[in-house]
């Protein structure tokens, strides 16, 4: 290469060739423009500056932090804090508005529902499922069947104090006896009352057993579930005539329910969540499709306003 004889000039461009060739393709020895080199130096200078300013080099137990003290975690914290500060007034407004007044303020209501949606994903999905569709023993919150009531204030009360939360006076309680296990009814009576329940829920035709069960029901069950089996919300006693079953509507499951009773438990949340979050959760659950209008009933009103 060093002697001039090897040098070849490309005819079309008049540029010197590098001298190597692959399948007839040769490389021109075109010089790079000098400013190209400058941009290369500029990137080097930028890189040095970056390493000094930002976290860059991993060390044995740590890494260089950079002069600016920036970190992605810190940036996230800052953003979260800013977001918190942004929604703080909204949370305060929600906490200060009685839940029955929220529907009158659509914007606040919508914010509450969205906040509730987020909080639900954190606190409630473990039992009620991510879509709030529940599971056996854990109510589906999308439907229109409510054990304790489906208006805003009632839902809020249920979330606040829970159901059968031990050592909490305000919690919702009711006690279904274990009719079979505790020998309150004979085995035959249990079978009869199961047959009766299957009939009032329109799953079976009336039979001799169900007719016998009618009396058993009236004597033992009607006090909570009502004479026609439509349930009593004040006691959390489910409606036995509709299409929705918390544990199952087949004869075997109903038998098991009557024999051993059911004592579902839901924790109180007022010791874990603030008022605004509980309120938002209530509006979210109410928005799922089964929410009921606030009753004009006196007692419900008192309950809603009595809470501090």
């Amino acid at each position: 290469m060093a002697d001039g004889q090897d040098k070849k000039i490309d005819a079309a461009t008049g540029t010197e060739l590098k001298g190597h060739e692959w399948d007839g393709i040769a490389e021109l020895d075109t010089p790079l423009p000098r400013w190209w080199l400058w941009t290369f130096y500029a990137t080097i200078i930028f890189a040095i500056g970056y390493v000094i300013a930002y976290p860059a080099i991993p060390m044995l137990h740590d890494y260089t932090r950079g002069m600016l003290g920036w970190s992605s975690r810190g940036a996230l914290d800052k953003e979260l804090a800013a977001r918190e500060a942004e929604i703080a007034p909204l949370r305060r407004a929600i906490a200060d508005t009685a839940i029955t007044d929220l529907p009158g303020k659509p914007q606040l209501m919508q914010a509450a529902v969205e906040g509730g949606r987020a909080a639900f994903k954190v606190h409630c999905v473990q039992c009620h499922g991510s879509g709030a569709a529940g599971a056996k023993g854990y109510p589906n919150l999308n439907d229109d069947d409510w054990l304790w009531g489906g208006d805003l204030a009632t839902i809020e009360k249920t979330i606040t104090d829970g159901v059968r939360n031990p050592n909490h006076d305000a919690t919702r309680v009711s006690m279904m006896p274990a009719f079979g296990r505790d020998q309150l009814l004979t085995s035959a009576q249990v079978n009869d009352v199961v047959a009766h329940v299957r009939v009032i829920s329109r799953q079976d035709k009336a039979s001799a057993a169900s007719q016998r069960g009618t009396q058993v029901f009236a004597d033992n069950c009607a006090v909570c579930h009502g004479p026609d089996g439509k349930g009593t919300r004040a006691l959390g006693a489910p409606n036995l005539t509709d299409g929705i079953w918390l544990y199952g509507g087949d004869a075997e499951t109903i038998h098991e329910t009557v024999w051993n009773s059911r004592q579902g438990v839901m924790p109180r949340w007022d010791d874990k969540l603030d008022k605004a979050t509980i309120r938002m959760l209530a509006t979210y659950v109410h928005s799922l499709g089964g929410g009921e209008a606030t009753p004009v009933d006196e007692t419900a009103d008192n309950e809603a306003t009595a809470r501090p």
Partner: protein
Amino acid sequence: MLMPAGSSDLYEKRKGVYPKAVDGFYRRLKWAIMAVTLAIYWVTPWLRWDRGPYAPDQAVLVDLAHRRFYMFAIEIWPHEFYYVAGLLIMAGIGLFLVTSAVGRAWCGYACPQTVWTDLYQHVERFTDGDRNAQIRLAKAPWSAAKIARRLAKWSIWLGIAFATGGAWIFYFADAPRLSHDFWAGSAAPVAYATVAVLTATTLLLGGFMREQVCIYMCPWPRIQTAMLDEKSLVVTYKDWRGEQRGSVKKAQAKPDLFGDCIDCNQCVAVCPTGIDIREGAQVGCITCALCIDACDKVMAQVGRPRGLIDYCTQEDAEAEKQGAAPRPVLKTLLRPRTLAYAAVWLSIGAAMLFALGARTRIDIAAQQDRNPIFVRLSDGAIRNAYMVKVRNMEARPRPVTVAVEGLPGAMLWTDAMPREQAAATVTATVPADSVAKLRLFIAAPAPGPQRQDFAFTVRATDREGGGDREPARFERP
């Protein structure tokens, strides 16, 4: 690293280019195109277009915040982005068309790099004088006079660069308001950053990089070179006519030895990229045709026919070399390839215009809740929930009715009403130029297929009417 003897350096310093002023047909054409393109760029954002009280009145506006694109009577929503894609395809095919017909005309006349470089070079002539004065000034040592001239030039350049960068942001917000905010210091930081970046790049690319952009940075010359064929018009030095070069005096002495080129170097002097077209077609030539003007002038002075340098296809060059007469330009323009491009270009344009004219300004989309898919209600019915979006693309609020087709016994209600008010249809008013989101519940009797196809329909109930339909699915346990 050892450098072989006599080999060129690895890096090459930029050679100064000091193009001489020139006048002629193509120079005037370039003036006109520069005036039109710059005017379009600077004036467009200030044009107004009345769209009523609910939409902006800026004729051309890319409203990124609200995801709308306004262009006079046309309003494009994000889901209609295919119109923009269509425009981009048309721009692409348009460039194919232009390139196959008239070579790198885009580079020579309309490319912003060319237009702004041209503008900057005029400024340079204004402050420093023409080519020779510029060369002298560049070589001169730094003195007060030189500094003064440089400062004058750079500040005019900076002013143009700022006006260029500044105008850009007006395409993305209401121009009068933004301009007021900009000067008041209350515009968004991104506006200032954009202006700063574009000012800097305009100054750098137009003032200092110039032909380096075309030769080293821009991919377009490579693409265009690949699209040129032997039937495309390129600026050609007709060497069969020009060679052997020699002065007028020499040619008078030996007329049959010398060609028409008098070797006056005017074509090189005027070239904005500093190349010598007489070496043949090359990537550095942006086909600005200024050398044609320069040479034509020289030919007129020495009394020889014009067109020693001229637009000419490679094919015609070969023919002319053999003695054929030059072909008229129109004949070279109309050929199957250019006609095919033109046909494709026109049909895409026509199809888009048709689609624009026929598009409905109301539409419905529905997404079924997947978690849970269905809910059993206490009366035994099955409920599915949907997020229904009704889009009103008119600049006024419109009342609409949403209904379902093909789902017997279906009752509809929204999350804003109790189920007692469920009915076969749901009505809503969609605000001007926006999307109404309805969370819609549908309850249907439990007996029925596990998956039932049906359709949502929406109908505007105002005088103009119009509607849309969206297939959906109802699912049961």
